[in-house]
């Protein structure tokens, strides 16, 4: 350690000291970063990488290009207005021959069928009937004879559009949009246009659950914040125990309670309030009840901590100045709980948006949220492009809301720090 003389600022020793301090600080920072690095690398591999991969799949479109490479190349300079020329037909014929030998026809057929219903049949029938490579100059005629669809312009625009290597097809489909033969973005055919409804449903369920949580959570948070700590700590168990109980247990419990021969229906029948069991589950009601139960603690806890920070002196001051209790509550107390209401509501809404297990188990077919369709297209139908595109939309919505939430909570911490 260098000791500077207390008598005066010696320039020659002070500068190196400053530099040494800076260097020490830099080493400290490098060491700190080295401690964080393993987690960052780990998350890159187990989290960021996989999600980026999923986002890439939403625009990746190389299947058709791999199976029909010459056709895609031949269509590159096609104007898209008339039928393509003989060169493209010959390329398609040779691609189909090669793909049949390699057994890859189905890969292209599956992708093209997403864009144009019936394309699978066109491709497989052509593959079956194209015995040999047509003679030079007759490819157009031969293919047109095998399947008249090859005389349609839309068949060819579909191939060209699916030529990749990247596409907006899946993202457009996730928003019920598609491109027509002229390349303009138009509404998707009604039998495929289901996702806007699913997104709306996801939004409506999440919003209903958030509002229910707020209505039920506000009085509880108020009670917990007002009671003396000994009693509120005890009551807190009622909030924390469900919070820590497995999601599956709670969902299972609601099924047991609400099913047609369940506890609730049995009790109501026994009491003579109803004559026949009510339908309480496998519908929207069941989904909202179970999700509200699961998410309520996420509303109560932020509300509680924001109410806990409000000094009772404000309310006393308001009443002593002559404000009626309701006015004092609405004008003095409620505005101070707004950050807590905002944080709790956003948290519940964000979590609700991505719900999968609860609606899958207690909802009917008309109550499935967006996550259900993402899971369905991933594991059941293997339409990975569409699953990824729907995932991308959900992820975007979640991250935007999380950003707002982060700002809100950070702001609260700052003002909270200033108040104290």
């Amino acid at each position, binding site marked *: 350690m260098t000791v500077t003389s207390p008598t005066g600022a010696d320039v020659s020793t002070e500068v190196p000291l400053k530099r040494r301090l800076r260097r020490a600080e830099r080493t400290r920072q490098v060491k700190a970063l080295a401690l964080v690095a393993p987690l960052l690398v780990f998350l890159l591999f187990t989290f960021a990488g996989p999600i980026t991969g*999923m986002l890439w799949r939403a625009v990746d479109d190389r299947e058709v290009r791999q199976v029909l490479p010459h056709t895609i190349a031949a269509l590159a300079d096609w104007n898209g207005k008339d039928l393509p020329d003989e060169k493209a037909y010959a390329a398609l014929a040779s691609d189909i021959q090669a793909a049949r030998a390699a057994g890859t026809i189905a890969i292209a057929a599956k992708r093209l069928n997403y864009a144009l219903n019936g394309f699978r049949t066109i491709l497989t029938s052509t593959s079956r009937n194209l015995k040999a490579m047509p003679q030079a100059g007759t490819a157009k005629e031969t293919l047109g004879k095998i399947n008249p669809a090859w005389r349609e312009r839309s068949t060819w625009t579909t191939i060209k559009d699916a030529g990749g290597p990247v596409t907006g097809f899946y993202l457009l489909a996730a928003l019920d949009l598609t491109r027509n033969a002229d390349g303009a973005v138009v509404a998707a055919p009604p039998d495929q246009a289901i996702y806007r409804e699913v997104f709306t449903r996801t939004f409506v369920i999440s919003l209903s659950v958030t509002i229910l949580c707020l209505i*039920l959570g506000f009085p509880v948070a108020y009670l917990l914040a007002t009671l003396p700590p000994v009693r509120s700590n005890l009551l807190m168990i*009622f909030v924390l125990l469900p919070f820590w109980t497995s999601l599956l247990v709670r969902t299972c419990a609601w099924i047991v309670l609400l099913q047609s021969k369940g506890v609730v229906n049995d009790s109501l029948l026994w009491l003579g309030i109803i004559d026949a069991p009510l339908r309480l589950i496998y519908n929207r009601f069941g989904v909202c009840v179970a999700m509200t*139960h699961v998410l309520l603690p996420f509303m109560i806890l932020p509300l509680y901590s924001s109410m806990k920070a409000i000094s009772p002196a404000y309310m006393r001051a308001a009443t002593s100045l002559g404000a009626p209790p309701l006015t004092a509550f609405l004008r003095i107390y409620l505005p101070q709980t707004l950050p807590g209401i905002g944080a709790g509501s956003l948290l519940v809404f964000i979590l609700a948006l991505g719900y999968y297990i609860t609606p899958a188990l207690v909802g009917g077919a008309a109550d499935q949220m967006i996550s259900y369709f993402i899971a369905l297209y991933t594991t059941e139908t293997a339409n990975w492009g569409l699953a990824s595109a729907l995932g991308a939309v959900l992820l975007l919505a*979640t991250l935007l809301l999380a950003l707002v939430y982060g700002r809100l909570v950070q702001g609260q911490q700052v003002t909270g720090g200033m108040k104290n």
Partner: protein
Amino acid sequence: MSDHSSLRTPSQRIAWTATLIVSTLVFIFLIAPILAIMPLSFSSGSYLTYPLPGLSLRWYDDFINSPRWMNSLKNSMIIGIASTLLSMVLGTLAALGLAQWKSRFKPLVLAFVLSPVVVPGVITAVGLYFFFAPIGLTGSYVGLILAHTALATPFVVITVGATLQSFDTNLARAAASLGASPIYAFRRVILPLILPGLASGALFAFATSFDEVVIVLFMAGPEQRTLPREMFSGIRENISPTITAAAVILTTVSIILLATLEALRRRNERLKGGGA
């Protein structure tokens, strides 16, 4: 006396009574389903309804003698403990680093580290499914442990980070000035002080893995099915009382975790109170 006993006007008293009534109903709403399911697991009949025809332990017997359920319990334990250990190492190191690191990128890095909590489970699961399948990590314990570690580590970073924030860095400096090597100082000075924080982090991590089902749904083969995953199939197929026995076992684990956490929090508060 508490604040609300000094309520003066009748309208205030009515408002307070209404709060009490509504809160009581909400407390019942929160706790009743969990309490209602428990006695059913001790029923001697096979219908999930009251009144119970008689008491028996047959469904627990069923659980213990079912290789499927016992295997799932074992899997939950293996995956839970392994991902807790891994997330403790990664999360504690990161929390220590973040506490010292000063940079304008810090909020960004922190947001990235915490993002697995916010991103919907299905998205993480689908991403991992695509990413891990080609490298043979789906249908394996390793894949599930890695995935659960990613989900659990944010909780470790938060809890350990919060403990470090209240940690007096002068103690570490004092140790260093008295000649302790960084590792010795960590082991003898820092570690004992942040141990309760580490324990809470570990509990959170374990609970996260123990309760997780979406990723398991996508990635586990028949060999790696966990307890919540087995419950999911059970609820889908038909709800037998064995599921309620499984639910009671899961809830017991949750209560133990919650009680330990509460005890740690109390101890911490007492220590802080003693210091002030």
